[in-house]
Structure formats: structure tokens, C-alpha cells
């Protein structure tokens, strides 16, 4: 069963948005995206972790080790103020893109 691939460049935005709601660990982020999109969007682990490193380097998220509910040690990622701002920028850009594509498709 082939799932539709994630639009390139949107992974960062989705991660940031997911983290806006609450801090999560890597697995939690993947699960959240999968659940909220009704199983349409699946984040490959192979893309998730490099993306998280990238976000860390840019200073848009920060990470710390905490205990989960099940008393396991996991690394939790939190959105920073800069990340919040970046999220706004990326969402705006994305919406502009979608509107433009919609206009093109809307033309008969």
C-alpha cells in the first residue's frame, strides 16, 4: 500500500506546528502527525531525525531529556520564541502557495 509522500519542505512546518500544541518526543511527533492527518501523512523516521537536528541548529526548537508517563527516558522537543515566529512565516508562505495553485486549478 503506497502512501502519498509528504510535500517537500513542509516537514519542518508540520513539526513546528505539532510542537506548538505541546512539547513532544520524536516518536510522539510522528504519531501526532499521523493521527491528526487521518493516516494520510506518514513521517519517515529517516527524515524526522535529520529534520529535528536541523531545527535544533537553527534555534527554532530546544530539546531536553525528561521522563515519560511510562517512566522511560526520552528527549522532548519544545518550540522556542524564534520557532514560533518561523512557524508563522512558513504557514503564511504555504497558504500563499496553496491559494496560487488553487487559482491556477480553478481556471477552466
Amino acid at each position: 500500500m503506497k502512501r502519498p509522500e509528504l510535500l517537500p519542505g513542509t516537514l519542518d512546518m508540520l513539526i513546528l506546528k505539532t510542537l506548538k500544541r505541546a512539547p513532544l518526543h520524536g516518536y510522539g511527533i510522528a504519531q501526532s502527525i499521523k493521527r491528526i492527518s487521518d493516516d494520510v501523512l506518514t513521517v519517515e523516521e529517516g527524515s524526522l531525525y535529520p529534520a529535528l537536528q536541523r531545527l535544533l541548529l537553527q534555534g527554532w526548537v530546544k530539546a531536553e531529556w525528561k521522563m515519560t508517563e511510562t517512566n522511560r527516558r526520552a528527549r522532548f522537543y519544545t518550540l522556542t520564541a524564534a520557532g514560533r515566529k518561523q512557524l508563522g512565516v512558513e504557514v503564511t508562505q504555504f497558504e500563499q502557495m496553496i491559494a496560487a495553485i488553487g487559482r491556477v486549478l480553478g481556471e477552466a
Partner: protein
Amino acid sequence: MNPFNYIARKLRILFRRDRFRADLDEEMAFHREQVERELIAEGMPPASARIAAARQFGNTTQLREESQAMIAFPWETIAQDVKFALRQLRQKPGFALTAVFILAIGMGVSVAIFAFVDAAVIQPLPYFEPNRLMDVAENGSMLHRSNLSREDYEDWKRLNHSFTSIDVYGGSGYLLRTPSGSEPVPAARVSDGFFRTLGVIPMLGRDFRPGEDHPGGAKIIMLTYGTWMKRFGSRSDVVGQSVTLDGTAYTIVGVLPREFEFAPRANAEFFVPLLDKNECEQRRSCHNLFGIGRLRDGVTIKAALDEMTAIAAQLAIQYPGSNKGQGAVVEPLSEIIVGPVKPIMLTLLAASGLLLLIAAVNVASLLLVRSESRRREIAVRGALGATPARISRQFVTEALLLGMLGCASGILVADGTMRGLTNLIPKATASFMPFLWRVGFHWHAAMYSVCIALVATVLLAATPILRLSFLDVRDALSDGNRSVAGRFWRRMGANLVVAELSIAVILLVGAGLLSKSFYRLLHVDVGFDGAHLATVQMVAPPDSYAKPEQQVALFREVSRRLSSLPGVESVGITTDLPVQCNCNTDWIRVVGKPFHGEHNEVNERDVSPGYLPTLKARLVRGRLFTEDDDASKSNKIVINEEFAKKYFPGEDPIGKQVGNGNLDPKSMREIIGVVGNVREGGLDDELWPTEYEALYQSPGKFVSIAVRTTGSEGAILPTLVKAVHELDPNLGTYGESTMAEQINTTQSALIHRTAMWLVDGFAVIALVLAVVGLYGVVAYSVGQRTREIGVRMALGAQRSSVYSMVMRQASWLTVAGVAIGVACAIGAAMLGSKLLFGVAAWDLPTLAAVSVVLGAASLAASFLPAHRAASVNPVEALRTE
């Protein structure tokens, strides 16, 4: 996004890399566990859940690497590549050493030759703003560039506006009084502003002041650094001391700096101002000086030339007798100094470049062989996820490493080669090549080394990468597909070998042509018998031999004494030995022929009666000089055939009269004989008309003595010198050598000989490399085809057919290489035709000889593998893996 924070974060992670890796591992383990748990919750058995989770998670190593790549600096993977490449080289020391050795030779020789070319041709002259310094000379109908006369120089200096200064220099020699007697030393006479024009400042004492070169001026002198060290012990109190030259006391006013060199008078030990006009300088028509001038700012060379030509034309109208037809020459001084050696330098540079190319190609084919044996490793890497770009980068790193190691060792080789070559040049010649002490590993040579290292690296990296593009992963991993890949390899390896063979052919043809040129040069017909001739130069001190009668008496006595020595057949004295230059000329006018003031230039030699017979010159008509032809008789001359041909075509010149332009009674002389052409000019100069005057009728103070011996001419030299000093210990002698040595050390002989030796050396190395390369290709190909050969033999093929199969492959390569090489060689020879003497660029015997030599060498090289192929045991071959 703040770039500083970005870098700062990267750096922070850099220093805690292990911690980062551990964290990531733990994080991924946690993630995997969660997936596992989820699958178990969905009902999958725990074991399969774990496998499924792992599979879903993917390649952890790749994941880790990608995450790491996110945070890594780009140069980290390069460091990884370098470490791997070093390990590879350490594992295969034989290959590494061979490759580095070959590269070192190629690069080392190339850099060494470049250093010479740099010092001689590329580096600017060691003067102030050297590109504004011009050579200023006159020109006449027969000589494009000829000396200035002193009176012309003074007028040119006064009348010109193009130069801030014009100064002159001329050669001379003096008898220096030493504690042990008199020693002739070469020196230079210069005008007062000479060093100022060059921009040279004495390091001790002072320069000549304006006006100090006028006749009657104080007798002052400047020492060169070398003379100061050699004769005055580097004492700092030499200024003000006096030296005796030609019996006169000169005061030392300054010492020139160490770096000072002036190539046209390179061996001068002293510099003296012009001072009194000598016999030649009293006549405007006698030319003995050369000029240098510093162009004024904003004046172009053409403008200066035009002005000087106009001034010369003005003087020609004012003084038609002496200056008619004389023009001016203005050229950059560097051209005069560098011009004679440029052709050979550039040729050597090209030849060393070819040697480098062949070395690089050789190493490239070695790398190719190695990349064959690494095919499986590359395939596995590809399967593990390495991109072609990543693998190519590995090859580039290895090539770069080899290139740098080769370059580093090449620099050592270059240093040794430079020292060796400099020491090989004979001392006498080295004194005429002042640029030699500037040869060394300097800035230009360093940049050149880096450039050729990069070029070599590109070549070395390109071969395996190009090879890689034809690679199929599956093919490489399976065992049985040898011959398919072998075909690809053979194509690339074969091309490389053909290239090597072509280059070797070019160098061999070049070596052959240069050797033939040198042989032809040395065997040019000189017009006299050069065997068993000993020569020595003699200088008569002016105080005891000022009057012509004294000089004549001296010459008669010298001839008598030397003839009576045992082993001496005959003795002759002349003003200039043969095979030197077309110089010391005279302008003549033939009585009875039309004359319009033109300058008929002929070589003038004043000779004793014994000279022409000593040389064994051929008498064609009339008679030679006798002991009676002295000042008491009317002036007589003997002319050479060229003179007779040019000025008396079809008639008998005996008895005809010749004089100077105005037919002054004192200058009239009668032709008494015609001799065969003795080559007075250099080996590759043209033959000029020459007149021989009787030495006893026009003597001088500087002469050369030629002695024909019955036995060894070299052994008699000390006896000759001793005999001269027994006659008068104040007589100066120098330059004693055999005629053969004299000819061998002329400039053209030296240039041709050096070119020949060096290119011969390159050609031999190239031949060895090319033949070894061919051997390698054929041997490897045979190794690849062992199974195929086994099958053929099992099916009934004869041994001879195996031989022919292998040799045929080698012959194709050889034929292709030789054909391409010959074509390129002819082209190259045409480019370098200035160095060839008496040999055409398409000289068939040379081309044929080179083809035969290379063909024979290739056959021999391929014979061994062919033999091995033919002795293959079919059963073993079929079992070969």
C-alpha cells in the same frame, strides 16, 4: 536565523560529538521500542514485532550518518577520506612507492628545468625598473646590431630626448700586477653614469661621478664583489687603495654589491671609466662600445627608435665618410641578454613537460589497475548507500594524496637536480651565465609545482572515476564476468599506453634530431686542420712594448723560441683565433670598383707569416706572408675565397689594391694571395669575407698564439706558457687550451650540447616508462584472459596462435603509438627548428631509427607475457578463479 548562533551551536556539538551520538542512539532506541509496543498492542507476536519495528525504522547507520551530516562541518568527511586513502596506501606499499617515485621524477625534473628557465628568462633583470632599460646600438648593412663609436655615442647622448640617460660599456683587459708577476684580467670600460642608469648602488665607497670618464680624468676603478673577495680578502679598507693595471696606478673608489651582474660583460673583474680615447675611439668610424639607455617616462620603444634613427641619419649627413648607411637599434636590454638562451630554455621546458605527462599517465594506468581490483569494494559501498559522488570524492582524495606526496618528493628531486646541473656546467662557461646563481626554489617555482601537482591530480582522479561510470554493481559482485569488464579496462588502459608511447616517440625523435644537429655542428667545415693545435693568449705590458717595432721584435722572438721547443711543428700568431665571431672588422674600398660611400665590412685579422701555414689553410692563388713582410715594405694582405668571390667575381684578385673609404695612401694595401675559407665566425654563423694583414706591418698588444704539435697538444700547454715567461716574465698569458677545446666551448656548441644531453636523458626515461607501461598492459590483459586462453588451448589451439594473439595486441598498440608520436614529433620539431642545425624537422633516418627502436623494445616487452600465455597449462587455466 542568526548565523553566529548557528555556527556556535555547531561548534558546541562538535566538541561534544560522542555525547551527541549517544543521545541520538538512545533517542532512536526509544522510538523503535515505542513502535514495537504499538505493533504488539495491535496483536503481532513480540519477535516479529521487533523485526517489523526495526525494518520500519530503516537503516540506523544511514540515519545516524545523515543526522550527523546535518550537524557536521563539510570538511569532516574529507578528513575521513584522507584517513582511508592513507590506510590504503600503507596496505599496498609497493604500489605507493612506485607511484610516488615515478611522479617524483617527472615533477622534480620539470620543476628543476622551470627554475632554470625562470632564472634565465622569466625573472626580471636585477636592475631598477628593468623594463625601461634599452640596448642602444648602431646598425650597419651587414650587421643588424653593431657597436657604437665613442664620438657617435657622445653626439647621441647630447642630441636625444627619449632617454633620461644613455651610457656605454666596452670590454677590455689589463695586466694586473700581482705579487707573483703579471696576470691578465678581463675588465670593462664604462661611461660615468653607467651604474646610475642601471640603478646599481655600490655597497662600499662611491659610484663614478659625472664627468669622471672624460679623457685625462683621474685613474679610478670599481671592484666587483667577487674580485673584492678573491683578490682583496673582503677587506673593508680597500677604498682609496691602489692597483696597478698595465703599469699604471688606479685608485679604488668603490665595490659593487654581491647581487650585481651584467651579462654582456659577465667576467669583468674591474670597471674603469672610459678616460683616454684609445686608438679606435679617436676615429668616429671605429666602433667598440655598446650602449644602454633608460627610457624617459611616457616614451615608447618605437618613439625612441625613431628618434635615434633620425639622429643617426643626421650624423650620416654630417659625417658621410664614417657614418653613411649607419642606423640605430633600440631594443629591450632583456632581449639582448635573454635572447640567445630563450630557444633552448623553452625547448627544455617543453621536453620536461612531456616527461611529466608520461610519468602522470604511467601512474594513472597503475591506478587503473588498482581500481580494477577494488571493483568489489566499490560495489559493496554502493550497495550500502554511497552515492557515486561520494565514491568519486574518495578517488579524488586518493589522487590528491598521491599528487601531493609526489609533489613533495618531487621538490626534493628538483633541488638535487638543480644543484647537479649547476655543478655540471664548466666554470668558464658559468662565468658567462650570471643568472645561474639565481637558480633556486623560489616563489615562481613553488607556484609552478602546485600547478603541475594539480594537473597531475586531475589526471590521476579522472581515470578511475571515468572507469567507474561504466561499472555495473551486479557485474562487479559476481565472479564470472571478467572478460566483459576486461574489455572496458583494456580500452582505457590501452589508450593510456598509446599516449605514453606517442610521448616517448616525441622525446626520442627530439633527442635524435638534437644529437644529429650537435654532430653536424661539430663537424662543420672549419677550413683548417684543428687537430694537434695548441693555443694561448698573450698580452704585452704597455710600458716595455709601447712602440710597434718593440712589438714586432717580441713576436719574432716568441715565434722563434716556441718553434725551437721539442714537439712543436710550427708557430703562428694572430689577433683573433678562428671559430670565435665575425667581429673586429674593417671597412674597405676596392680600387677600380664603383664606390658610393657604402661600408663594405670584412673581418680583419693581423697574422704572423707562420699563422696560415700553422693552421694548414689551403693556398688557392698567389703567396702567403714571409718574414720579410714588415714595416719596411708596402702593406700586403691575403684574402679568403669569400672575399675574392664577393669583390672580385670572375677575376684574379692578385695585385689588386684595397684601401679605406677615402683611399688614404697610408691605408692602401696590395692583395698577394687567396686562401681557402677559414671559419672565423662561430660554427653556425655565416662565412664572411676576411682579409689577413701582416702582423709585422700592423702589430698590437693582445695576440693569440697557435702552435701545431707533433704529439699531444694538451700536454705541451704548460711548456708553452713557461717558454713565454722565460722570454719576459712580465708578459701576461691566459686562456691556454687546445683548439678542440676552444671550439667545444663556443656558445653555439655549448647550447647544442646541453640541449642534446638533457633531452637524451629525458628520452631514455620516457622510453623506459613507456615500455614498462606497455608491458604492464599486456601482462595484465594476459592475466585476465588466462581462462580464455586455457579454453582455446583445450579446444586445440597451437601455442604459436597464442603467441600471435598476444603479440598482435601489443603490435596494434605500438603501431598506433608510433604513428601518432611521429606526427606529433614532426610538429614539435618544426616548432623548435631554431635549435636544429643542418637537420630537417622530418629527417627520415631519425624517424625510422626511433620507430625501429621503439618497435623492438615493445616486441621485447610483450614477448615475456606472450611466452607466459603460451606456457599456460589448460587444465590449471580452466580451474583459475
